[in-house]
């Protein structure tokens, strides 16, 4: 083999290598090709060209001609070093979790300079400089102006950024694809309420259809902006649900997003993933924080070579390419914005698209709460500090672990259970989710009980939530007091907040909730968007105490035994009954006892 080919090969490898350095900042379109080329060429060149050459070269000069060349041996050493680090980078990668990855990356990068220096010295020593080979690299840096176009109707504030103006289901990369490297996070998300927010959520499906019926099909988009953004961008007017033969698929009990992963295996990205997927949150570039899907999502992201490939080989290679140099991948899926509350506010505030009536104001409640304290970092708590932090033994216990398989061990991995208040739907799938949510709910309130002047006084304090208790679509969330007082003989002299035989709560119970009325002052029932007049508001603002008092007959015989419970139920029985008309398999949500106080009064 002629030495000239070796020279070309070495310099091609060197240049394609260093061009990937941040210093050069070449356009992503070129980067991804060069990166793939660098690896492909290295396999061909190293195996087929350089290895036999080196063997022959050493044999000829060192053993036959007995030429002494120390720098030649150094050259061999550095070559082997680059080879090993390269192999490590390709097969295992620089994922951040092990020191070897970082070492390999740096060895590979700086070792190449060493190798080239020695290589030039080695070749120049033997002969006059022959610069007969010249490398010509033409870099086409094409900067396409990014255009933002928004299919915003007033119904959804969502904007989509796209360079070429079109996108497909492929751009909504299926979350099952993320699973292969982010298995823990995927497992958490797969049974969470974010995953099951659209087609597999019976309450949502009933409500979206109802909204379409009551306000016109177009109105579904108001719901879909947050619940099903992928379908909206693809021009679908409604959320679909899965079928199993002639039956509704049983996905309210389905664990680990089985249908989604199966779909991905057979259809790849061709079949659109509906609901809140990895991409939905991790491709948001701007958030106005004003609710009703007021975010901008960009579907143009930097993709490594073969990333969209449908073949197994391509999929394998793309993973290797990402792992070997994951910086760009990391940057294109995370954003400092994601730690701010206004990011969550894109969807966790809700107003009527035509009348502007505020329906859900979780973010605005937080803004006014003591938790919004940007001046004092120790007191400032954003959404993720409670809702994406692991809980253990009813306390926040940041989870130490990895977000990428083999990645850096983080002290506080942001868990993707998205614990809020809906312990019920996620709990049908996974007990861990249920426990996380129940623990979070229990941190939120405190109960104090006293009897004064023949009055039972119960105080409920919102000690843990950075928003009202309850929040969300607060006329669906039931938080109420269950009170029983018995006298000396054990006779019940006061009872409140018990369930009736049909599962609804007794009339006259003390609720902490807001009650929506329509324009005529009648309760809105299921049609919460009809809300015009606030009939009552007994929610408890952050850090505030609300007092309920009950009259006790003056003639009762002490001692009194008082039993007070703060109960929570995610959906009222009448709402569940309605949804069960369509989903007969849906169980009833249980009543959750958040706090219980038993006291004797003399």
């Amino acid at each position: 083999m002629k030495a000239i080919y070796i020279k070309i090969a070495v310099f091609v490898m060197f240049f394609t290598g260093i061009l990937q350095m941040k210093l050069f900042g070449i356009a992503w379109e070129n980067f991804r090709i060069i990166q793939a080329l660098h690896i492909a060429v290295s396999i061909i060149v190293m195996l087929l060209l350089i290895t036999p050459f080196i063997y022959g070269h050493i044999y000829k000069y060192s053993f036959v001609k007995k030429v002494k060349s120390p720098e030649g041996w150094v050259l061999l050493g550095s070559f082997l070093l680059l080879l090993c680090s390269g192999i490590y980078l390709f097969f295992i990668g620089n994922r951040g979790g092990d020191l070897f990855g970082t070492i390999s990356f740096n060895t590979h990068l700086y070792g190449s300079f060493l190798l080239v220096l020695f290589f030039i010295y080695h070749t120049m020593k033997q002969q006059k400089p022959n610069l007969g080979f010249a490398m010509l690299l033409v870099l086409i840096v094409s900067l396409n102006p990014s255009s933002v176009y928004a299919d915003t109707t007033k119904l959804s504030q969502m904007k989509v950024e796209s360079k070429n103006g079109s996108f497909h289901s492929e751009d909504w990369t299926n979350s099952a694809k993320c699973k292969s490297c982010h298995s823990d996070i995927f497992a958490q998300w797969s049974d969470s309420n974010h995953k099951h927010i659209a087609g597999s959520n019976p309450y949502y499906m009933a409500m979206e259809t109802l909204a379409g019926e009551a306000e016109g099909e177009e109105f579904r988009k108001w719901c879909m902006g947050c619940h099903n953004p992928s379908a909206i961008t693809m021009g679908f007017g409604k959320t679909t649900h899965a079928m199993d033969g002639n039956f509704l698929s049983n996905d309210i009990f389905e664990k680990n997003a089985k249908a989604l992963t199966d779909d991905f295996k057979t259809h790849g990205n061709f079949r659109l993933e509906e609901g809140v997927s990895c991409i939905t949150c991790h491709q948001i570039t701007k958030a106005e924080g004003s609710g009703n899907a007021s975010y901008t999502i960009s579907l143009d992201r930097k993709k490594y070579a073969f990333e969209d490939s449908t073949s197994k080989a391509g999929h394998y290679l793309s993973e290797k390419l990402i792992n070997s140099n994951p910086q760009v991948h990391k940057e294109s899926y995370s954003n400092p914005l994601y730690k701010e509350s206004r990011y969550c506010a894109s969807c966790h505030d809700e107003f009527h698209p035509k009348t502007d009536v505020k329906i859900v104001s979780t973010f605005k409640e937080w803004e006014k709460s003591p938790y919004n304290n940007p001046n004092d970092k120790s007191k400032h708590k954003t959404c993720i500090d409670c809702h994406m932090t692991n809980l253990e033994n009813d306390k926040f216990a940041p989870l130490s672990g990895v977000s990428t398989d083999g990645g850096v061990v983080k002290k506080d991995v942001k868990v993707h259970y998205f614990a809020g208040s809906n312990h019920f739907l996620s709990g049908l799938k996974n007990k861990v989710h249920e426990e996380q949510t129940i623990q979070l709910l229990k941190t939120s309130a405190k109960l104090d009980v006293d009897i004064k002047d023949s009055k039972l006084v119960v105080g409920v304090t919102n000690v843990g939530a950075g928003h009202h208790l309850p929040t969300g679509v607060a006329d669906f969330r039931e938080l109420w007091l269950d009170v029983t007082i018995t006298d000396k003989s054990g006779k019940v002299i006061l009872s409140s907040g018990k369930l009736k035989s049909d599962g609804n709560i007794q009339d006259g119970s003390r609720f902490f909730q807001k009650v929506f009325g329509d324009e005529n002052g009648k309760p809105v029932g299921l049609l919460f968007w009809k809300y015009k007049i606030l009939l009552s508001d007994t929610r408890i603002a952050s850090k505030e105490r609300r007092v309920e008092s009950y009259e006790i007959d003056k003639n009762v015989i002490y001692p009194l035994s008082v039993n007070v419970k703060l109960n929570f139920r995610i959906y009222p029985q009448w709402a569940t009954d309605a949804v069960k008309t369509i989903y007969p398999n849906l169980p009833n949500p249980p009543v959750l006892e958040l706090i219980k106080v038993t006291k004797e009064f003399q």
Partner: protein
Amino acid sequence: MKKILFYALILAATVLSTILLIAFLMPKKIIPNYSDEKLRELALSKGLKPVPSSYEELLKLVDDVKNPMTPEKIALGSELFFDTNLSKNRKTSCATCHSFDKDIQNRGVLLSTLMAKNPEITNCAACHLRDQSGVDRFTFSEGDSGTQHPNMLNTQTILNTSFAKYFTWSGEVQSIQEQSANSFQAHYKMNLTPKEVEERIKENPKYAAHFDEVFKDGISFENTTKAIETYVKTLTTRSAYDRYLEGDNSAISHEAKRGLANFIGFGCKGCHNDISLGGQSIQRFPLREFAQVYDLKLNFEIFPELKRLDSEFPFENNGGYLGKKNEHLFRVPILRNVTKTSPYFHNGAVPKIREAVDVMARHQLGRHLTLSQIDEIVAFLQTLEGDLVDYGIKGEK
């Protein structure tokens, strides 16, 4: 040895480059960007027509001297169509599978259903009745007492069948009247003999007068199916696509117009033609032989994907149905309202519209459509989604 290796390599390279060359030299089908007027002209010239919006226009197209349509007959047909007594277990009517509300203006059953103590409608119908799709949304049809179709066939829409020439999946049925007679008698549908049907009709005194008014010979099985036929012929839908064909350029989106151009240009309209966009002929499916063994997808991956398909269809053939005479012959389905009638194909094996478009392009046209082309065609198909036309026929007393 070296020589053999050399020639083998040369040969391999030649074969490979020839294959690639053919792929590259194949002329790319370029669908021009038509202006709105040009596209409309093209569509109309290819036989695509809007659904008539007036009863008189409809009569001109669908009335038949053998069974003339009169308002009274249509009203009688409507009563029979929704009568659950005309099935063995008295629970199934035509409208059970070909579902929509009798009052076509009534699009609001969900709220009343959800709030009712003992709702009449449950499950799927609560949400889907208002779709006006003319199908049951099941994967395979279920008749009287939940008997499933022996071939697990999917229910086809009854809407717009007045414009079709052939009926049912095999296309062996020539008229709606014939098919309604079949449906009454099939054990997996209404499960009644003609005599039983007549008896059931006589049970209801309302019918006697109505039949006498409409037919000279009063109640009979044949007259029953005739009345049903006239009613079914009025079940047509109009959509944004019709408004576009009639001159409203803003009725459909730019993407949908591209989809229509693709639909015509790629040749979909060859079979899905006329007013109903289907139902006019019987065709073979899958058409491309290669599809039966290998689905070779030429791509520039490291290794080309080879997928072996074991079944006769590009999907699993549950129910084992093979079309007319077991020769893969099927009536071309009507595409109007196709986005409301998932799942697709004769056994409902393909749940999503984009996948159905992809299958059709591959196996009927031999084309791998690009993602944009598929999305455009789907956008066009969405414009075929329409509401039942209220022709204001007043035949009831």
